[in-house]
């Protein structure tokens, strides 16, 4: 579903992502891990077409993100890291705007936005200005927007950052459920979260893929009990 081949991105002289290749199959929930500055967000931004790779290629469901950007982006629901939203709009109004932007007609937009508001627990704040919402609710609005056009692939950049424990648990549950209909690429710092929600994992370190495979596979290869041990081993903190 997501196919990445030798993806490289230079910011000036600095290589943020170096020769990254991986594949994500349909219906998988994949954890995308790595320390800060490892290139997770850069990779995700290249997949969503926000940045153009310096070299290499990536495709979403067979659509190249560079040569066929509109078709590729139609297949993606993206939740950026800081979850930027128009603070002066109301939740429902914002989702309707995003629906139009994604090329959905009026009826579809209303139908889908009601559905995603239900799904992301936004019913009670639908008429509220986004600027007045708490961080947790904003995150849900971002998630609702990602789900809006019912895309085949969801790319979520740290969806649980800044949420309270209850919300984190709810969000994880939601992501696990979403894995049934969508292919999910999920970046996070919280390792137990990956063990709870993901089928497989890609660890990226200093711009390169360090480990990829199923959770059990990765643990077995590195002879570790938890993902945390694997992570520490790769990032060199524990020998």
């Amino acid at each position: 579903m997501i196919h990445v081949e030798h993806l490289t991105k230079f910011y000036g002289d600095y290589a943020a992502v170096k020769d990254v290749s991986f594949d994500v199959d349909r219906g998988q929930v994949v954890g995308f891990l790595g320390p800060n500055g490892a290139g997770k967000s850069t990779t995700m931004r290249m997949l969503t077409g926000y940045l153009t790779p310096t070299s290499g290629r990536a495709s979403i469901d067979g659509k190249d993100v560079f040569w066929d950007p509109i078709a590729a982006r139609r297949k993606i629901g993206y939740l950026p890291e800081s979850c930027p939203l128009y603070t002066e709009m109301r939740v429902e109004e914002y989702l309707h705007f995003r629906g139009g932007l994604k090329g959905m007609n009026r009826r579809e937009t209303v139908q889908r936005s009601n559905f995603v508001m239900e799904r992301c627990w936004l019913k009670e704040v639908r008429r509220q200005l986004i600027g007045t919402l708490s961080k947790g609710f904003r995150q849900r609005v971002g998630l609702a927007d990602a789900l809006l056009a019912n895309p085949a692939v969801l790319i979520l950049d740290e969806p649980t950052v800044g949420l309270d424990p209850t919300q984190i648990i709810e969000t994880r549950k939601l992501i696990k459920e979403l894995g049934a209909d969508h292919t999910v690429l999920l970046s996070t710092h919280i390792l137990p979260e990956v063990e709870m929600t993901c089928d497989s994992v890609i660890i990226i370190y200093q711009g390169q893929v360090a480990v990829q495979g199923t959770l059990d596979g990765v643990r077995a290869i590195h002879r570790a009990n938890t993902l945390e041990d694997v992570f520490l081993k790769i990032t060199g903190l524990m020998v």
Partner: protein
Amino acid sequence: MRPTLALIKREFTAYFLSPIAYVVLTVFLLVTGSLFVITLKLLTSDGPRGIEYPMSLMLGEDRFWLVFLFIPPLLTMRLFAEERGSGTLEMLMTSPVRDWQLVFAKYVACYGFYLFMWMPTAVYLPVVMDLKVDWNLSAWTPYSVPFVAGLVLAALGLAMMPIGWISRGALLFIAGALIATAGGYFHYRHDANHLASFTAGIDPYPVLTSYIGILLAGAMFLALGLFVSSLVKSQMVAAIVSLAIGLPFIAGVLLFPYIDASGDTFRVVSSFTVPLHFARDFTRGVLDTRHMMLYVTATMLFLFLTVRSVESRRWR
């Protein structure tokens, strides 16, 4: 088409959600209103005082352009700069729209606001043209009904657009205009008498050319502002830079008070001094294609550069 419409609608309504739009509208109305009062006084005064072209007092004077200098930067500063600052540009650039659609939608929205800003000045026009209407209701035919109804529908459609029903309003406007055209045509074929005949006591064409000039010059300044806004992250910087770039176009000749008016320097500088174009040509009923060409090509250049600048974000 639908994504572009959704974008235009959001950008246009966003103006009315920020205080800056109301400040601009108020100041603009105050200035044009006071200029209108001055014009009115001169039009009605006795003796040797008076004016030849009412519009040249309203738009040909430095007073107006001093204020106008600030308006386009204030309207365009937020368009891209704000989105880059708050990160929402990432949401736009990862949604399935082309970069030019983004630029086009933002430009149309701010140009729409510019038109909206000028709309109230239409109230001055009957006075400035000394317009008289002679009604001839005996010329009423059955076809006049769709004609009038179409006009009402079109006006309703126009009124709907600023309050958010953009596509519905536009549809109603087009439908109304079509009905009015058909009604008017059949009325004319049936009975060639006019329902209302307008006579202008003062030459109306300088008014028309002034508005054509203002529409084109505004397009240029707005495109310039849009381009600057796409380059920077801060609204303040965007406003100041587009003000600085717009300054030569407005101050132009004023910057060289002792210049020889027959020399080459003057010719070059006056070729891009917008107030001079208005004082000499547009407000006196002259449509000089050199000025119009400058506005149109500059608009296209800046829009092109904006698309490139937005596109280049992805490459960095």
